[in-house]
């Protein structure tokens, strides 16, 4: 199957500052991908490269097997702060969408607006944050893209509006098998809705993979103090901290940890993301020294 998103050595510079450096990714189609990382890590840059709004400085990016082209009917993009036209009504947004997009599914758009309880005569400027997000998602989805790119779609929403938005998004992917890449800080949300995760830190991909594999492959080890170098093959230390008597490690391991002198705990996705984002991660120290 064609990959939804693939990149090799992808680099984007603004002057001397690298927003993305040497990123390689291979995201299968049909996934809902969570893109996480601290502010300024390059999440928005990656999404804008993927929808063709930006061109890479070097390296390669492909979306659905093609070079990204701005305005492609196969890709729907909702930028940060869910932009809508404040002066236009909900119905006018749909009419404009139909006019601009040959693949527009008017019946879907109207049904979805009715379902979400939006008043077609309402001006977009008068909508709540949650309603604006629903309108922007409807407009992006009604052109029937194969890939939806969403930049922080739920950041400004209250918990109820967030959950409603995510339900709608999951219904869409269930109905059409649309691939989704969405950036968010709300890892608990991503753990529900995403089956693939990319962690970007300091303009680089720190880890990417299936959520189930990430959950099954990461552990917290707690035991008496020792050098983590002796852990053995197949176990990579993501984060470590030591007191005089105790060592606490976050490790990635393909095999079960059978050393009985470690207490082995499960981690949730947030723990894993935080471990990769944390400054004591060994690779991160190296990156910081450049």
């Amino acid at each position, binding site marked *: 199957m064609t990959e939804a998103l693939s990149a090799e050595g992808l680099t984007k510079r603004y002057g001397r500052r690298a927003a993305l450096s040497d990123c390689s990714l291979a995201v299968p189609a049909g996934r809902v991908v969570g893109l996480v990382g601290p502010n300024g890590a390059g999440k928005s840059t990656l999404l804008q490269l993927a929808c063709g709004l930006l061109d890479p400085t070097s390296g390669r990016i492909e979306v659905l097997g093609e070079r990204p082209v701005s305005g492609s009917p196969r890709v729907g993009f909702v930028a940060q702060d869910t932009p809508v036209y404040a002066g236009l009504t909900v119905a006018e947004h749909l009419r404009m969408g139909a006019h601009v997009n040959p693949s527009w599914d008017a019946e879907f758009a109207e049904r979805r607006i009715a379902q979400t309880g939006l008043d077609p005569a309402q001006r977009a400027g008068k909508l709540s944050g949650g309603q604006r997000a629903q309108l922007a998602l409807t407009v992006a989805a009604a052109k029937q893209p194969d890939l939806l790119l969403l930049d922080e779609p739920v950041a400004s929403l209250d918990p109820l509006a967030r959950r409603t938005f995510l339900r709608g998004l999951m*219904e869409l992917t*269930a109905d059409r098998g649309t691939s989704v890449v969405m950036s968010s800080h709300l890892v608990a949300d991503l753990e529900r809705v995403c089956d693939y995760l990319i962690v970007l830190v300091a303009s680089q991909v720190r880890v990417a993979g299936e959520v189930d594999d990430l959950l099954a492959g990461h552990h917290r080890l707690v035991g008496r103090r020792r050098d983590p170098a002796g852990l053995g093959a197949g176990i990579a230390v993501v984060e470590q901290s030591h007191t005089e008597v105790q060592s606490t490690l976050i490790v990635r391991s393909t095999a079960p940890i059978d050393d009985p002198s470690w207490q082995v705990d499960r981690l949730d996705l947030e723990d894993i993301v935080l471990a990769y984002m944390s400054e004591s991660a060994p690779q991160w120290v190296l990156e910081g020294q450049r």
Partner: protein
Amino acid sequence: MIEFHLDARSGVAPYMQLIQQVRHALRLGVLKEGDKLPTVREVVARVAINPNTVSKAYRELEYEGLVTARPGLGTFVTRTLGGDSLAQHEPLRKDLQRWLSEARAAGLDDESIEALFLSAFRSFSEARG
């Protein structure tokens, strides 16, 4: 029909949580042979969960022989769980109580007992794969 929920803080993968909830409902007799599970679409619309996760859980349950998917109709329970093992609970509970009083007599407090049980349970489960 049962409803699913997700515990975000459990550290258990979402698809596994769904499987556990079905098994639990089967064990308690909430779900019986012939009962229909909610469709993938119904689950995602209610729980806000990835549809692939729901499909994965259903496939796993089918592989275990607990449910069967009938194309165009839905996913149906094919057998119940725990009907015979329920009768075994009482003698096993008595054994556990005996063991607990021995542990207490040996000077273990609640936390030590819990830690000992969990570590023994974990190595037992891992040994059996």
